[in-house]
């Protein structure tokens, strides 16, 4: 994978190297993440897209060591998280936070909002209650909620959008450097979704955050990401700067995802070229290129050889034997 080094995302805060995550379901092995390498530069937002079951959430969890990898390394600020345990890992995790898809389910329904947000502070050893309260108020205000109206209430008193604001506040309270957002807006309505995306952008600028933004909706990913990584069935297909990737996708799967986005314009007739078929099971992924069973360009070589991620345009990497653009 020497090509990754040719396209230098300057000063990587996170570096994932040849990560493999597999787990057993009954007697079968799910190949959730297979040899994935990527980098996220300090201050950057990397979007990670793919369909359900492609391993994008598993990858997010494996970065935080919530799921241990079979092999590979996760370097955060130069330190290998996969080699850390116990207190060392816990201290490291204060710098990396996670926001989930379902904001209501990720808040304890029996605890008050003030306590929910203060909890990470308690765990990390902020003993002064006054100080904790101060910090809770500060983050709640930052995410656009009025602390005096919020801290004493329970999660069910809030809408999905407000709960996501609360989750963001909880993620911010330890002043992390890196936040993994796992489908943070897919459970929300269009109007509320825009509010939350704007909020994430504001928070990123204000707190100098680096984001890994995981989602299945390419339009949402493009709205917030500097670079985008496309994942299919446990492997990366393509990585590149957002605009470049959308303007000239090199991988047929990226092109398919772009085509499938519903366009809110009645003059744009939906194309019917989206291939029939669904992703195969990650329990028995196809040989060679995993996308070949749905790919219009697939041939024998795609069945025989796993395509390596290689540089095809400045900063744009693709893993395909028959890319849509010529290497330049």
């Amino acid at each position, binding site marked *: 994978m020497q090509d990754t080094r040719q396209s230098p995302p300057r000063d990587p805060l996170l570096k994932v190297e040849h990560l493999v995550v597999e787990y057993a379901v009954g007697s079968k092995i799910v190949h959730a993440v297979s040899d994935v390498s990527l980098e996220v530069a300090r201050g950057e937002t990397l979007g990670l897209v793919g*369909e*359900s079951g492609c391993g994008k959430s598993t990858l997010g969890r494996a970065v935080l060591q919530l799921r241990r990898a079979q092999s590979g390394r996760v370097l955060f600020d130069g330190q290998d998280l996969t080699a850390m345990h116990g207190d060392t890992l816990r201290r490291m995790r204060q710098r990396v936070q996670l926001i989930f898809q379902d904001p209501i389910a990720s808040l304890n329904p029996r605890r008050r909002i003030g306590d929910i947000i203060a909890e990470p502070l308690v765990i990390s050893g902020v003993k002064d209650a006054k100080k904790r309260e101060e910090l809770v108020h500060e983050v709640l205000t930052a995410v656009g909620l009025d602390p005096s109206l919020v801290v004493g209430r329970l999660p069910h008193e809030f*809408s*999905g*959008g*407000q709960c996501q604001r609360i989750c963001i506040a909880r993620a911010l309270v330890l002043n992390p450097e890196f936040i993994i957002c796992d489908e943070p807006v897919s459970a929300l*309505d*269009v*109007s*509320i*979704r*825009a*509010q939350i*995306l*704007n909020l994430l*952008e504001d928070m990123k600028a204000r707190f100098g955050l680096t984001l890994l933004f995981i989602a*299945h*909706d*390419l*339009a*949402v990913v*493009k*709205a*917030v*990401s*500097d670079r985008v990584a496309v994942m299919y069935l446990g492997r990366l297909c393509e990585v590149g700067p*957002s*605009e470049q990737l*959308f303007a000239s996708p090199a991988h047929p799967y990226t092109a*398919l*995802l*772009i*085509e*499938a*986005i*519903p*366009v*809110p*314009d*009645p*003059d*744009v*007739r*939906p194309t*019917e070229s*989206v291939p*029939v078929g*669904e992703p195969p099971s990650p329990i028995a992924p196809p040989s060679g290129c995993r996308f070949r069973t749905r790919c219009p360009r697939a041939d024998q070589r795609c069945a025989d050889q796993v395509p390596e991620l290689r540089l095809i345009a400045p900063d744009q990497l693709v893993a395909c034997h028959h890319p849509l653009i010529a290497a330049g």
Partner: protein
Amino acid sequence: MTEPALLSVENVSVDLPTPRGNLRAVDRVDLKIGAGRTLGIVGESGCGKTMLSRAILQLLPKKAKLSGRVMFDGQDLVRLDPERLRKLRGRSLAVVFQDPMTSLNPVLTIGTQLIETLQEHLELDGATAKRRSVELLAAVGIPAPEQRLMQYPHQLSGGMRQRVAIAIALSCEPKLLIADEPTTALDVTIQAQILDLLAREQRRRHMAMIIITHDLGVVAGRTDEVAVMYAGRVVERAPTPVLFKKMHMPYTEALLAAIPKIDAAPHTPLPAISGRPPDPTRPIQGCSFSPRCRYAAGLCFREKPLLTAAESSDHQFACFHPVLPPVGIDA
């Protein structure tokens, strides 16, 4: 509309008693859909779009109170006796729900569920019903349909389950198919496939279809007409191309603007709609959208705007300060 409507919803309201008081889920809605036409109903969660579809199907919760008329194929469904209603549903009036796992019976095979529907409504014998089932599964794009008949819903992926639900809905050649958020639970590529499938079958069978969704992108290329709902009411209604080009209702404009655009540069701030939909147990005196509307002034906070015709009678909107003031035809 000159052609007689297949379905005509007339002044329909739905009230639900809740511990916090009466909740008016649907508020005096009028809608029409002609045979073979496609209508999109768009709105945020809680705007009443699902309650409206349930009112059409007469599948409201027991405590709900419905007023108004639902004329379908010459009969008022509200006053139809339960036995005739049951015969009608599944036969000429079919529905596909958001989550196929909840609409399919988990302990019966796909085959049993399909064959049962066919035998019940079309009185086919077992062998014919089975043959028809295989044809239907093939028509909705399910590979190896004969083997699938023996499988249970949990053995299929979400997209496949939705295809089965569509096959069951189509099995008795309905005149109207109501698809309630049919693709919200599915991935983008599968969403496109299912929407294509619905459109293809709708054209082929000359069936009328109502697509209920929160995503204007879903209805844009696939409907003849769109009704936008907010707080239980229809706030704008127009032929699809007209709605997207000459929308009058600020809410429609805001909904469209809030969708991330694929051709926008990264980090472009999205024009979000501030606030959230009103609490339906606490009705707002003026226009329900006024607290979130950037054009709202004076009258908007005191009086509810009525649905009135714009340039043409098939375009209606409910707003005192429309985005584009209606002008003479051919503006």
